């Protein structure tokens, strides 16, 4: 029996997405930048650039460098701040007709709960994604995401102030990502997304200087896909909440690997730079795969890995 239009919609918390293809924070601007290249309405959702309480100017340049099959970035979380985001960017985003997820970041638990409060009441914002790869200023700059206790505390801080689903975005720079995922689940998260970037570095042997002004930066792109997929599979087997897979996803085949490994949805990051229409191609490619494999619903795919 041929399937014409397989069901693509997935659910995270109590909100549903028309399909599992989201954009990864910091790689899709505030959505509008991609209007010339993508039918934004076709996407499952847009995760916007990470937002902090106050505007941030970010790191000095150089901020990016290409590496084998990937790139390093040290943007330094440059953003317009939550107020300008709400005032200037939300109108456009509301008009697209897809889910909008706001990615938040802070230096302290207070920052996170204040941000959650500000964001959760705004019309058109469907969920919060919490970037916990940021340094905790009070704990000497150790990232929230590298300690189960701190990760849980941030989750609780955000959940207690949020009326919308909370997705906690995990750092891969840890010994056991399932421990962090479980802590975050216990803290009340409605979903986890992973992975954020791997910490990396590059050196210019002519000048003998680091290629990034910030010395180290985050590695993203196809190079990290195997690590991301392994972590998604581990976490999907460790928690009950939905998992959103991120890391090097460039094609529909990549996305399907993550769905098979147990991801309920995926986010496309660096690929947006390489091919600004990547997200829409991935939605189409997943649909075609389901049709070719005679699956009526995306849920038949999710977690379908045969071991």
């Amino acid at each position: 029996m041929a399937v014409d239009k397989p069901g693509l919609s997935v659910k995270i918390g109590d909100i549903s997405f028309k399909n599992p293809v989201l954009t990864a924070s910091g790689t899709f601007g505030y959505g509008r930048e991609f209007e010339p290249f993508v039918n934004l309405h076709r996407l499952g959702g847009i995760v916007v650039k990470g937002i902090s309480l106050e505007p941030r100017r970010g790191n000095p340049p150089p901020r990016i460098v290409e590496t084998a099959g990937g790139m390093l970035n040290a943007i330094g979380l440059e953003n317009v701040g939550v107020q300008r985001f709400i005032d200037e960017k939300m109108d456009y985003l509301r008009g697209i007709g897809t889910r909008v997820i706001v990615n938040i970041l802070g230096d302290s638990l207070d920052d996170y709960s204040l941000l959650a409060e500000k964001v959760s009441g705004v019309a058109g914002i469907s969920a919060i994604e919490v970037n916990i790869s940021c340094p905790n200023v009070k704990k000497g700059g150790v990232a929230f995401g590298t300690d189960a206790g701190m990760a849980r505390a941030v989750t609780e801080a955000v959940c207690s102030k949020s009326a919308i689903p909370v997705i906690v975005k995990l750092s891969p720079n840890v010994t056991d990502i399932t421990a962090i995922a479980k802590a975050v689940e216990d803290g009340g998260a409605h979903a986890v997304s992973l992975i954020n970037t791997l910490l990396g570095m590059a050196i210019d042997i002519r000048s003998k200087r680091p290629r990034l002004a910030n010395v180290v930066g985050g590695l993203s792109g196809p190079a990290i896909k195997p690590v991301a997929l392994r972590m998604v599979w581990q976490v999907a087997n460790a928690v009950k909440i939905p998992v959103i897979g991120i890391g090097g996803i460039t094609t529909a085949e990549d996305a399907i690997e993550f769905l098979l490994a147990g991801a309920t949805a995926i986010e496309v990051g660096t690929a947006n730079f390489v091919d600004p229409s990547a997200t829409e191609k991935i939605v189409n490619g997943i649909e075609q795969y389901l049709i070719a494999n005679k699956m009526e619903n995306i849920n038949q795919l999710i977690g379908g890995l045969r071991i």
Partner: protein
Amino acid sequence: MTQYQTLAEVVKKEQIAADIFRLTLRAPEIAGCARPGQFVMVRAMAGIDPLLRRPFSIHQVSSEGNIQILFKRLGKGTTLLARLEAGEQLDLVGPLGNGFDLNGPGKVCLVGGGMGIAPLYFLAREFLRQSIPPRLTVMLGARTREELVTVANDFKDLGVNDLSLATDDGTLGHHGLVLDLMGRQMAREDQWSVYTCGPHPMMKAVAEMARQNEWLCSVSLETMMACGISACLGCAIPRAGLNGNYLHVCKDGPVFDAGEVAWL
């Protein structure tokens, strides 16, 4: 802000020096709306090596829907581009960036060095076509005659009469820097609008001379770029005085008023 992603066919490939190439690409939408100083992000090949697109200034636009890029073979990306042959395709995103403001006051001087010449040709053509400035002077520099001669002739053919050349090795025109030409030919008293693109040290010196003479000066800058469309924030450069937010070359530029940016 009309932008397109398009598979452009290589219409023509010219090797104009040992390591300098010019590609003519069929891209009617981009050709239809590009302004001088804008650029395209180019992907020479599917696959991940190199991963990112490469930015190139729009060198020329034709009424038949073609654009040209002029580039130097430096690394992986440009080596792949240099291997393309007519009939092959490549993926373009553009036109991107702000482009030059053609309404500078007074006489106009275009100062180009190396591959910075690329956008100035399109700019010169627009100036001549719109017959805007009272006088158009063009000064071009390169390392050797070989690197300069073909493009210099193109400027002549375009109708640029006031053209001065400089080469590092003295094989064509002045033996030295384009900066020397500026010092000689541009009277301090005159009002000039200077448009410059080239190696950073050259632009810095041009900007400094313009500042001292109180000439308007537009510079077209280069940085590393991942996206070219204002999504990655990778192309930041500091503002003059090093305060406030960073400027972003792909969106606020690549053309800036020389006084806006910090010349480090």
